[in-house]
């Protein structure tokens, strides 16, 4: 393989977009069908880790709307 894919220890250090890109890379590699079986399973497991992380990321924000007034206080405010 020309570009060797390396798993990283902590996927949480990645941005969402990066994680998605890595996932795509893994898939491309797996689809080329030339990966040794043990390695393929490792890659797949890493892929699952990335998927879980991405899904987590999507739910991370709480969906609040805060209005910041002159006095610098935050008011929860729903339209």
């Amino acid at each position: 393989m020309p570009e060797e894919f390396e798993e990283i220890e902590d996927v949480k250090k990645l941005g969402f977009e990066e994680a998605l890109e890595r996932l795509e890379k893994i898939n491309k590699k797996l689809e080329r069908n030339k990966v040794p079986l043990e390695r393929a399973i490792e890659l797949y497991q890493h892929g699952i880790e990335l998927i879980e992380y991405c899904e987590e990321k999507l739910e991370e924000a709480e969906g609040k709307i805060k209005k910041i007034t002159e006095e610098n206080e935050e008011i929860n405010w729903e339209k």
Partner: protein
Amino acid sequence: MEQSKIDKEKDLDQKIYSVSGLNHYVKSLLERENEIQDVWVRGEISNFKHHNGRHMYFVLKDDTSEINSVMFSSKNRDLDFEPEEGMEVLCRGDIGLYIPRGQYQLVVKEMMVGGIGELYLAYEKLKEKLSEEGLFGDEYKKKIPFLPQKVGIVTSGEGAALRDMLRVLRERFENIDIFLVPTQVQGEGSAEKIVDSIQKLDSMEIDVIIIGRGGGSIEDLWSFNEEQVARAIFKAETPIVSAVGHETDFLISDFVADARAPTPTAAAELVVPIKTELKQKIMDQERRSRTALYNLIANYRDKLKSLVDSPVFEKPERILEDRYQKLDENIERLGITLDRYMEAYTRELNGQKDRLKALSPIQTMKRGYSIVMDEKDEVITSVEEVNIEDILKINLTDGEIKAKAEEVERCQKNLRK
């Protein structure tokens, strides 16, 4: 009398212009003068004529002076207002000369309503200044995060712009966090307020800030053209999207911000991805991973099966057969090589033998020479070695003669010398 005749003759040497020739010449002089080409002139429109929607003819005047002006249809069709009598305007144009009348005139390329014209000039000036300072440089543009969790908004507390942004943000990503700083965005002191709001949000941990407002007149949008707003945007460490007015409005804030959106709605779309699309993308990737792994395993299984089915496993002796065949082939090739070597050696040996033969004394003796030796088989090469009565052995090619020396005589000529 005499004197004036000389003058006249002198004059006759000079060129005499025709009227049109003179007008052409003066026209060319005017057009060559950079100082009066591409000039800005402020004045009041009078005597305005615009026949059949074609060229516009008018006079620009102030309290004490006036200048004939023309704005050709190719230029005036871009005007976003209809000039009228008494209107205060700012014109950009070239000074030229209308040859049939010998009248100098302003050929207008661009026209703006008085106050707006001044604003426009201020805008151009600031834009050029900040551009030269490098505030618009791509190297300073921060990347808008792909998936922000906290979005800051600087805009008016009420109005369609805010409503639209909130709606779009919610629709695309229902659990995004929004931090709104209601800000006066037009009128006296609004630039300072915008700067304050930007700084406030920039000091919080926010992923991206949208500053903007809905459409309005150029005066309404003006605070986004103010230098202090531009500098606050440039200084902020949070990526900022500028979304002011409509698609056709380009404000200084658009150039200095990290991204420009044509409208507030577009800004919301630019900043936040559609969550369901992302979810779909992740699901697609998951399916791809699974399929790829299954295919890979199936592939290996096929390979294994084809190996098990291969003749090697059915008849292992095949492997040995192959090896033997290869060995035989090699032995044969080795034999051929050896034979070639032997041939070459034999040829070389025979050659050497022939050369050796040519050197042997036997060939010389065959021509009638013989070798004389004493009884001890020492070769005699000089008469000095022989005494009378000595037994000599004379060797010929086919035998030996024993003889006795009867007389020893030295040659007159020494052959050896």
